[in-house]
């Protein structure tokens, strides 16, 4: 079993949670143990952390990457 820390900017529906768990269970080919956190600093989207790797799909990350590309 793998523990996943799932961060969103607001509360998500159970259906959405089910989708997330399904995708990562297939990815790891293992049962997962999700921990849901709310952090409005990410603005929107999702961040998933498995203890080693980070999957950052947050709007904050996208805006930061956009800022960096504009600064170059």
């Amino acid at each position, binding site marked *: 079993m793998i523990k996943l820390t799932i961060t969103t900017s607001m*509360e*998500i529906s159970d259906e959405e949670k089910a989708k997330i768990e399904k995708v990562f269970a*297939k*990815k790891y080919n293992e049962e997962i143990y999700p921990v849901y956190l709310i952090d409005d600093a990410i603005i929107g989207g999702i961040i998933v952390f498995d203890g080693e790797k980070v*999957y950052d*799909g947050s*709007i904050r990350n996208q805006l930061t990457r956009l*800022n960096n590309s504009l600064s170059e």
Partner: protein
Amino acid sequence: MMNDLLLELPLGIDLIKILLHLLNFLILFVALTFLLYKPIIKFIHKRQDDIKKQLDDNANLKKEAENLKEEYQSLLKNADAEIEEKQKTAEKNANALANETLNDAKLKSEEIIKNAIEYAELEKQRIATEMKENISDIAINIAKEILDKDIKKEDNERIIDECLKEWSENND
């Protein structure tokens, strides 16, 4: 007979007396020659020699003076030529120094101008970069503000779905 002849000369002339006078004259002559004439001649000769020597000395001195005069004139001439040469050299050196100073000043001013242009270019680039960063920061902040306020639950879940789709495809 001889005495008679002698006594009988006309006009009362006494031959003995004449002879005595002649002898007297002769003695006087000889005496004067040895006592007066020879010393005087000797003195005159010595005087002549002295005068000649003095004249010779004067001639030598005059010649020496003329030689010295020539020598000094030659030295003066050489000195004039040397002075002229030194003046020309000094003038040439002064001109060379002036030209060198001018060239140095020109090079330095060109260097200053070049550095100023480079600095201005760097400043321009720096300001442009800074402005770009500032503008992008402002744009990002504005986007953040707008999204923070306006993002809805459905939009958020749609964004999450897109991320899940992308991560699934990468897994495949």
